[in-house]
Structure formats: C-alpha cells, structure tokens
C-alpha cells in the first residue's frame, strides 16, 4: 500500500456535501491530506512534523501502513464516508441528539434510531443532514443522517439512518 498527497481544495469540496456549514478550510489548515492506494482509499490528515517524516521515508521507498488523523474513506474521491475521529470534532457545529439506553445499545450494533428513543435534539435539523448521536452521559456514539426534519414528532418511526458508530471498534477487533 502506498500513500499520496491529495488536493486539499478538491477534498474540501467533496466533504462539503455532508458538512456544508463546517469551516473545513480552518479545520484542515496547516495539515497535509493523504490518500491510500487501497480500495476504498483511506483519507487522512497529518500535521507538518509527521508529513516531513512521511516524505523523508517515502524517498527511501518506505510507505506507512497508516498515519495521522482519519478523515474517512472513499472509492472515487467524490463522496466520502466520514470517520468517527473526523466527525467528532464538529460536536459544537452539527445538530445532535441524545438517545436512551436501549437505542444506544442498538445504535452500537449499526442499527438506526427511532423517534421514540430520542431524549433531546440540539441544533437545527435540515433533513437529510449529518446528525451526531450521544448517550445520556454525553458520550459520542457516532453519526447518522436525519431522514426527517421533525425527529421526535409524528409517532414511532425510524428517523436517523446509522452512518458510523463506535461499535465499529469492537467489530474490527472481533475480525482479528
């Protein structure tokens, strides 16, 4: 596997589809973005110090297995599946919900969120928008796409489609 630097502006343009209101220019400022040759391509952001090491070792044909901060993965660089590590940074800028314990457990098994399990909603939900999911203790559980603007009204129904959840870490451990 090898890693190459990718165009920051193109990445931002692509990420804007899911994060229209986030200041991505500032978030990625002073860092370099790299993509892996594997499929799907992993996209990461690395600070200057790490980038210097990366380029120095690349010159002697050493390519990392992994590095930096995960941004997401993509097949075509037009649409990215965002990583937990990347999304979590925007907790103050994205709409979010708090769910009950039962929904927490189900969400960690990749299930969607039902309206009757939502305890509270913060921020303006403009469907279909990226929405962060928290438990009652305030732990970040992952993110999903709101399927409606009104997450708690109109009876029991699925309202958040699971995009990524921290249960992923247990699932990858069990793959070992």
């Amino acid at each position, binding site marked *: 596997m090898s890693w190459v630097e990718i165009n920051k502006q193109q990445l931002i343009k692509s990420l804007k589809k899911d994060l229209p209101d986030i200041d991505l220019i500032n978030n990625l400022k002073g860092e370099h973005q790299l993509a892996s040759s594997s499929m799907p391509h992993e996209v990461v952001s*690395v600070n200057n*110090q790490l980038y210097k090491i990366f380029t120095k*070792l690349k010159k002697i044909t050493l390519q990392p*297995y992994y590095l930096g*901060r995960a941004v997401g993965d993509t097949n075509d660089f037009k649409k990215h599946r965002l990583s*937990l590590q990347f999304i979590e940074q925007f907790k103050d800028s994205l709409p979010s919900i708090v769910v009950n314990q039962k929904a927490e457990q189900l969400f960690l098994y990749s299930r969607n969120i039902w309206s009757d399990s939502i305890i509270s909603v913060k921020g303006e939900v403009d469907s279909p928008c990226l929405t962060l999911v928290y438990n009652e203790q305030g*732990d970040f559980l992952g993110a999903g796409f709101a399927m409606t603007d009104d997450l708690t009204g109109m009876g029991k129904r699925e309202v958040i489609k699971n995009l990524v959840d921290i249960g992923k870490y247990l699932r990858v451990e069990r793959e*070992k």
Partner: protein
Amino acid sequence: MISLVDKYSGLIPQSCVKSCYSQPPATIRVNTLKISRDELINRLTNKGFKLVEHKAHPQAIKIIKQPFSIGATTEYLCGYYFVQDAASMIPVTELNPRPGDLVLDMCSAPGGKTTHLAELMNDKGVIIACDVDKQRLKAVKYSTQRMGFSNVVIYNINPAKLPGSLEFDKVLLDAPCSAEGTLYKNPKALEKANYKQLIIEQQRLIETAIKLLKKGGMLVYSTCTINPEENELIVQHAVNQGMKLLKLETSAGSPGLTKFKGKELKPELSLTRRFYQLTDETSGFFVARMIK
C-alpha cells in the same frame, strides 16, 4: 522438559517464578486526554465493576469484579481506557515522552504502549510505530483512532530499515521474547520458544535502537520474560556499546540481577527492574532505562 522453577533455581526466588503461571488482576489505563480517572471509576462502578488502585503504576486501575467484559463497555469504545497489564505501563512512563518529541516504538503491536506514548505527548510530536506483523498492526491503527490520537505513523517494517538520520529523542524497545512472564496465557510457550533466535533478534534490535537514537536520547528496553539472557544480558550488551544505565523512577519491582551462571555482570545492572505477579501483581516483566 525442565521446569521454569528448576531453570532459575538459586537465581530467582521460587515463589516469584511460580507466580508467572498465575494470571495477574485485569487492569486498565485511563486515557486522561478524554476523561478523568475519577469520572471513569465512577462510571464503571455504576455499571457494577469493582475497581481499586494498582500499586505497580499510578495510572493503572485494578479490576476486582467484572459483571461483563471490560472490553465491551461504551466507555471502552469511546476510547476512555485501554485494557493493559500494569507492568506494560511502566516502560512508557520511564521513557517520559514529551509533547514535540520524535519517538520510536520499535515493536508496537497491539498498540497499548503506542497509545500511552501518544497520551503522554498530548498528541503532539511524532511517534513512529513499527512492527513486522502486519495482521497485528490493525490493532495499533484502530486503538489509535479509538483513543483519538493523530501523531502516530505506523510502518510494517523491521525498524532496522529506518535511516540513522532520523535521530530519535526517545526509543521504546519492548522486544519480542520468550514470554516466560505470561505463562498463564500460554503454558506451552516455553516449548515453542527459540531462545537462541530470540536473543540474536534482541541484540540486533537493541543495536538498531542505539543507532537510531540521538546523542543524549533515551532508550527503554522491556520484555515480558524473566529470562536473564533476554534481559540483563541484552542490556549489558547495550552498556558495552556505550549506553549508560539510569535508575528507574518507579519504586515497584526488584533490582535486576548482577550475577548469572556463576559470572558477575556489570554492577549497574541492578538499576534495571524485575516485576512478578507475586510481588507486584503484574505479569513477569523487565524494564531498563538508558541514555546514549
């Protein structure tokens, strides 16, 4: 086949050797960049876990009672802690990495020490984490992500391939070993261990560590074996190459051996530390700290 007790008769107290067959208590290390120790203890206690301080390391929390697996809580998935033997925390704190340092973790999988380094560096500076086992590097990658670190670059290489021009501030060599200190995990490990090969590999690795370290840089060598040939004798090899042994900060453990097979070793090897389940409630472990 000779037993471990017979092998170290007259060298290491029998009771200490025997304790390598007993599992130490499960322990966790708090990721203080994400949660405070007190809050984590409160939350896990509310879930039915019984937790107490661990005498071997200030960051270690000993688990007395687990109503379910400690590796399956929401707090674990949130990256608030790492499940790790208390002894494994000692090499990292002894290395004392600082934000901005360039640190080499020579045998990094499964990532417990790598994430501990990243935490102590406040996610600043760079850690080059190497391991020759690609399958096990997956754990390093996801542990780094789960615990929220971004200052790690992982290479699936033998660190001997790294250029000397990198000049690391600090190097951690948790060397592959016979794992005599963790026989409770795999009692048959002794039968499989190729001691000659391991010792050659450890010597090569410590030579690489010395080569890659900048002048005045710090090296911590550790293993999970109680075998002097893989511990004190490897460190003596480093001292012979000009490394200077330093006293460890920890008061846990017991001094390293200064005699082996009737021969006197360098007296400063008493500055190294040995750990046993019996005396320290850890796996059998060895740590040495040196400066170039």
